[in-house]
């Protein structure tokens, strides 16, 4: 049973560039959430996708956008990268919008220079 997978594992970009991160949910899951984890902090919620729509959004600027595909996989896009966007980006999957545990992937470590 495949768990949540993310790609790439590491990424280095420069300020002003754009980046796309990818996530495949755990088998049987249809909801994908994205989190940003800065060093020494807990994960912060970016947004959640269900039925190919953004259902909920955290306190992140419009530079952060996403998409969910019919196979439930998801992308996170960040435009006009800032140094402060350097973080671990985590994808989590779950079943429906009923709450409950979310299962995390290994994350993508993004470094913005």
């Amino acid at each position, binding site marked *: 049973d495949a768990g949540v997978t993310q790609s790439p594992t590491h990424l280095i970009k420069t300020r002003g560039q754009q980046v796309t991160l990818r996530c495949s949910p755990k088998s049987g899951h249809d909801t994908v959430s994205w989190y940003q984890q800065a060093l020494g902090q807990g994960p912060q919620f970016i947004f959640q996708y269900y039925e190919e729509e953004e259902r909920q959004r955290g306190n992140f600027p419009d530079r952060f956008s996403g998409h969910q595909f019919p196979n439930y996989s998801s992308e996170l896009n960040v435009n006009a990268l800032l140094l402060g966007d350097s973080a671990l980006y*985590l994808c989590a999957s*779950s079943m429906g919008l009923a709450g409950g545990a979310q299962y*995390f992937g*290994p994350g993508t470590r993004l470094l913005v220079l």
Partner: protein
Amino acid sequence: DQQVKQNSPSLSVQEGRISILNCDYTNSMFDYFLWYKKYPAEGPTFLISISSIKDKNEDGRFTVFLNKSAKHLSLHIVPSQPGDSAVYFCAASSNNDYKLSFGAGTTVTVRA
């Protein structure tokens, strides 16, 4: 606004003894609480959860206690093992808000 707080950044415990991790929350709408464990270079792994209708949930060596009146929960690990050395995150959600709000984490070190 940090709604979930883990006030102890680190905990050191001897192998075989009990580890007790604490978590406080401020949002009275939270009704579901979770603990995650994270090793370096890996994503958080779900450990155990508890609904607000309960005050205790047990799964093997892990027990979570919830005190709603104090807005406090704790995770007990008995007995602690070297493989338990990791960062532990407390998280919470509410019935109409499915995002998880996390604490900053507690680093547990189990000494041989």
